[in-house]
């Protein structure tokens, strides 16, 4: 009796091993390399140097950041972006001031300072790298925004 159980167990282990191997062959990894292989090297992109403001494609678009932001601290204690883009500093720094929408809370009430939902700038504004678009895009700006 004991012997039979042991035999069955051995066969089961063997089967599991086999099917796991078969599975591994079929599974497609999202990394783009086979499961048991190392990842392919990431493509290293360089951020673009400071340039002129980048034209916008539609009215409500958060403008893209046309300059480097490496090392800029935006924390609950301090906001580097506002040292140039706030209403009190933009003139001296020659930067665009943040628009009034940045003072509105979600109910549309205008706050006395930057609204919490607009405080962490890089949620919406992003710096640029010289990369090909990941998917094709046929969007055309309306005539008024055409550049």
């Amino acid at each position: 009796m004991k012997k039979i159980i042991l035999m069955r167990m051995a066969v089961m282990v063997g089967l599991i091993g086999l099917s796991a191997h078969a599975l591994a062959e079929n599974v497609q990894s999202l990394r783009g390399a086979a499961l048991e292989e190392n990842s392919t090297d990431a493509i290293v992109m360089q951020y673009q140097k400071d340039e002129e403001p980048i034209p916008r494609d539609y009215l409500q678009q958060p403008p893209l950041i046309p300059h480097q932001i490496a090392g800029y601290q935006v924390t609950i204690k301090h906001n580097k972006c506002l040292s140039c883009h706030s209403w009190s500093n933009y003139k001296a720094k020659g930067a665009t001031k943040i628009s009034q929408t940045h003072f509105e809370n979600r109910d549309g009430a205008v706050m006395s300072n930057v609204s919490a939902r607009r405080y962490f700038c890089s949620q919406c504004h992003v710096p640029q790298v010289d990369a090909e678009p990941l998917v094709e895009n046929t969007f055309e700006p309306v005539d008024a925004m055409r550049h």
Partner: protein
Amino acid sequence: MAKKGIPLSVLIIGVILGILFWGGFNWSLELTNTEEFCISCHEMRDNVYVEYKDTIHYNNRTGVRATCPDCHVPREWVYKIRRKIQATNELYHKVLGTIDTREKFEAKRLELARHEWDRMKENDSRECRNCHNYDYMDYPSQGRRAMDNHIRGFDNSLTCIDCHKGVAHELPDMYKDDASAVILKH
């Protein structure tokens, strides 16, 4: 022969002692002027040092580093000694445990930062200029914003620390003090 003045042997011993003492003094100055010494206490290692490792002065394109004493200890002898004497006060607070937790450190941080800002404002950011000299800055090869600000800033006798706070550490809690953040006038 009557003995006049100091005997030769005493003189020689004096000179030797002098050399030893002077050497030892300079040796300890040098020893305390290393990054290892600066971060040998946990107040520095667990706060400013970990933050510094994420900044341009630790990790950058060319791999050239600025260490703690490069920015915080003057190179010229007179200023160096003055700063070292002040530092004994910091040791005293170390013994008292004034900033022995992260919370206590954060609470004190604005005050500590202000001391450094004032010191650098007063000496025209001397330690920065040991490495970065604006006489040798090639403005056109800098970014648009850097070029504009440097030409205008130096004409208006601003100094590095006026515009470049927080180049090596996280900044203290100043959002409440000055809602538009950074350019803190004091």
